[in-house]
């Protein structure tokens, strides 16, 4: 029978609901007629004590009940009831279904409204009565964390974690901690706070420093990583609960312009800073006395940090008389606090900014670098002899990063950096729970942002490890060891590195993110994700109401499509085809190709699969897998004599309800056309 177990339905309403087109009393009577079901009508505007009293009386078995709360906008209007159910009566969150009846409104024909409301309730009941509780387990995990890198973000992470009673391994590739303050001269002394931070990292009893360390291999997953590290003395095998990656940026030469290998007057930005810090050793490079000096800065336009750094040294020349300073850039990257003002100030102190589509040509004449370029302002070819030519450097990713991506199974990122370019990861997470990235591991950025990210990463570690006692769901991702054939498909496909094996596949529930890619791909149906089980989906599809047509079954990813669907339904112009049946999925990756074919065997007229846009999937690949399966299913449908156009795959975002409606409209129009034909 479709309603598998005892169910208690609460219709939360006051008299205002009839204003919206649903005959609430009739609905209640119908629901009361469902097998194994009891009904309570409850006005959410009642005082809290009264609500509590009535709920306790109705749900006298306490937490054992499965409760379906149906109302208009229940998350807002019946929030007090939800809180009472969860907090005071202790209903297991998996046993509480919250159903918004909004979708049943808006039909012109009140009979359709009722039918739709009934269907919504029945579908929710079918799914809810097959739900199983998901327990919480407390796991003992090492309260040891590996912080890798020698940036201030790494140092701050290490110190903060150590202060919070974690044991920290701070490994870095160089012989000493040598963090950069990006955008500032390398020779500039550190501020007091930063100096103290670095000192704390050196001296903290809970931090073990590992200089010249390299990560060789990492096994395991969240809460249980086995890291193999190589230092000059030894190879270490360490067990850590989590890791934070923050390898420092490296300065690289900017675009090559055919600069001679070494010429005393062609300097890198770093070399210039060194000279300015010890001018006595510069000879006559910096000019003598009042002789005019021509300084050209070439190409600090990769990032606002490069511009900031160049302007700082340019200022030192601008403050001298008889000094002409030029800045050759393609674009002035002023997108950082204070830079526009700095640039303006430098310009009013005499800085000449030359904006070119490409860098000038360089040659050496009479022992002076000479630049040739087409001046866009004077509109003529110019030739400039410089006394000093300063080549810009780029703040690039650390050299060690490239290897780390492979070793840690991280998703591909912007070249050299460690975090996939996906907004779901913001600010500091990666595809693998327990591995966090901060500051220069992600991008070149200002120090205050890097430190804020270190903060965020430490917070994530603490949320995960709980100082040695981690909480994880138990029974959310379940492998039937009888069915598992250890084909390794799940382990290979898991984007989160959560699957290992002994003689059957094992899912680490602390690392698992419930996307369901494994479950839907398993060739022997050995994995179930609660509570989006095959059982529930099959039961929902078997019980489509034949009176509501056209029958469009929609599989909606909860991270985008489901939100868009809710938003679309609440905009009062949106009326969906009466037979539209939405099924929420944790990720598009959970959508089994089996569901797609079965939908048609159960009489669906069309099937809609909606997932997140490429590069926007929380599990990186869920939408790609969904697309592969849809395309395969379309072939199989055609083989079986079903028009493959009836199965549609689209991507959309949570804030694009109009994309959702466009997809539904497309299908509705298609079905109209097929009917007419």
């Amino acid at each position, binding site marked *: 029978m479709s309603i598998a177990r005892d169910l208690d339905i609460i219709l939360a309403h006051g008299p205002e609901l009839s204003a919206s087109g649903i005959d609430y009393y009739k609905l209640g009577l119908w629901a009361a007629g469902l097998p194994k079901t009891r009904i309570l009508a409850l006005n959410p505007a009642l005082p809290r004590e009264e609500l509590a009293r009535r709920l306790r009386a109705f749900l006298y078995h306490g937490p054992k009940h499965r409760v379906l709360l149906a109302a208009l906008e229940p998350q807002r209007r019946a929030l007090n009831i939800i809180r009472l159910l969860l907090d005071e009566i202790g209903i297991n969150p998996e046993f509480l279904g919250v159903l918004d009846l909004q979708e049943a409104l808006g039909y012109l024909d009140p009979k359709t409204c009722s039918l739709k409301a009934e269907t919504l309730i029945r579908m929710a009941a079918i799914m809810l009565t097959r739900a199983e509780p998901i327990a919480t387990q407390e796991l003992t995990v090492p309260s040891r964390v590996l912080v890798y890198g020698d940036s201030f973000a790494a140092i701050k992470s290490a110190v903060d974690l150590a202060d919070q009673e974690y044991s920290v391994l701070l490994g870095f590739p160089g012989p000493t901690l040598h963090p950069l303050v990006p955008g500032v001269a390398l020779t500039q002394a550190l501020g007091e706070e930063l100096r103290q931070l670095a000192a704390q990292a050196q001296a903290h009893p809970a931090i073990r420093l590992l200089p010249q360390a390299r990560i060789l291999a990492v096994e395991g997953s969240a809460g249980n990583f086995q890291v193999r590290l190589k230092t000059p003395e030894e190879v270490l095998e360490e067990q850590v609960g989590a890791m934070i990656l923050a390898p420092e940026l490296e300065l690289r030469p900017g675009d090559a312009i055919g600069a001679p290998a070494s010429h005393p007057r062609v300097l890198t930005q770093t070399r210039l800073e060194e000279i300015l810090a010890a001018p006595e050793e510069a000879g006559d490079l910096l000019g003598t006395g009042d002789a005019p000096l021509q300084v050209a800065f070439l190409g600090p336009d990769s990032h606002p940090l490069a511009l900031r750094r160049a302007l700082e040294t340019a200022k030192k020349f601008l403050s001298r008389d008889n000094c002409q300073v030029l800045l050759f850039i393609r674009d002035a990257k002023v997108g950082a606090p204070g830079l526009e003002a700095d640039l303006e100030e430098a310009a009013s102190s005499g800085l000449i900014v030359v904006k070119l589509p490409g860098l000038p040509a360089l040659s050496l004449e009479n022992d002076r670098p000479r630049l040739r370029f087409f001046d866009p302002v004077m509109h003529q070819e110019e030739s400039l002899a410089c006394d000093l030519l300063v080549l810009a450097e780029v703040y690039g990713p650390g050299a060690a990063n490239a290897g780390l991506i492979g070793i840690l199974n991280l998703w591909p990122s912007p070249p050299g950096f460690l975090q996939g370019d996906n907004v779901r990861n913001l600010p500091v997470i990666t595809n693998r729970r327990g591995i966090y990235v901060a500051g220069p591991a992600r991008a070149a950025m200002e120090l205050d942002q890097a430190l804020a990210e270190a903060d965020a990463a430490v917070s994530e570690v603490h949320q995960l490890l709980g100082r040695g006692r981690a909480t994880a769901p138990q029974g959310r991702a379940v492998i039937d060891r009888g069915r598992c*054939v250890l084909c390794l498909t799940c382990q*290979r496909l898991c984007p989160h590195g959560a699957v290992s094996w002994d003689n059957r596949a094992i899912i680490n529930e602390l690392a698992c993110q419930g996307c369901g890619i494994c479950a839907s791909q398993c*060739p*022997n149906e050995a994995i179930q994700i609660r509570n989006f089980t095959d059982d529930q989906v099959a039961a929902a599809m078997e019980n489509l109401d034949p009176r509501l047509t056209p029958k469009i079954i929609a599989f909606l990813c909860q991270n985008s499509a489901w939100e868009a669907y809710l938003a679309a339904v609440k905009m009062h112009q949106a009326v969906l085809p009466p037979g539209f049946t939405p099924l929420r999925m944790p990720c598009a990756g959970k959508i089994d*190709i*089996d569901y797609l*074919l079965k939908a048609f*065997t159960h009489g669906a007229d069309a099937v809609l699969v909606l997932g997140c846009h490429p590069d926007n999937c929380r599990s990186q690949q869920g939408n790609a897998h969904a697309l592969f399966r849809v395309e395969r299913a379309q072939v199989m449908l055609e083989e*079986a004599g079903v028009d493959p156009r009836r199965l549609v795959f689209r991507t959309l975002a949570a804030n694009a309800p109009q994309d959702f409606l466009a997809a539904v409209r497309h299908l509705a129009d298609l079905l109209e056309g097929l009917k007419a034909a």
Partner: protein
Amino acid sequence: MIIAERKPFAEIKAMVAPYKKILIVGCGTCVAVCLAGGEKEVGLLASQLRLALGLEDKRLEIGEITVERQCDMEFLRPLCDFTADYEAIISLACGAGVQFLKQLCSLQPIFPGVNTSFIGVNNDVGFYTERCRACNNCYLGVTGGICPVTMCPKGLLNGPCGGTIQGHCEVDPEKECAWSKIYHRLELEGSLDNMRRIMPLHPCDRSTTPGTVIHPAFKKRYGTNE
């Protein structure tokens, strides 16, 4: 392991079209691993057949069951009562399993749902390559771990034919020359001498079919003399 591919749907449909009660039996070992015949594929084939043979046809019944494997009778025997209800059976097991299943259900026609392709390796999900021809005379130790029976398009057992073009075979330019690779492997290993060893010819396709292997420890049990 054994790699198989599901037969084209049109072929399967043609095989079972005359029947109204069809059972699809899957296998949970090799064909499951290569995503051709496990429980999921059984379900997919059943759905396809239901759609193709007519959803409205009330007499159409398609049963689905998957067993651990079909090459052990112990796993098949429990199916005895089950299979009796059906007019035709599709087995998604490899050729061996199909035959064993047929032994059990002599009354109904058994149709293979997959083509057994080769013995191969599982490179990654959905990607398999052939590595072995079951020639019963393995000398991979001599050829640096590369099987010339399988990997050489000409099946040469004793060294290159001289028809290598840039490391690829003159017969099939898509394929690499197995003997070039064998040479380089042996070089790396330090066993180039193996190139001089002559391996006796042996028939890959046996003239006496089907092959039988009885483990030496069990020869008495099965009463064979050696």
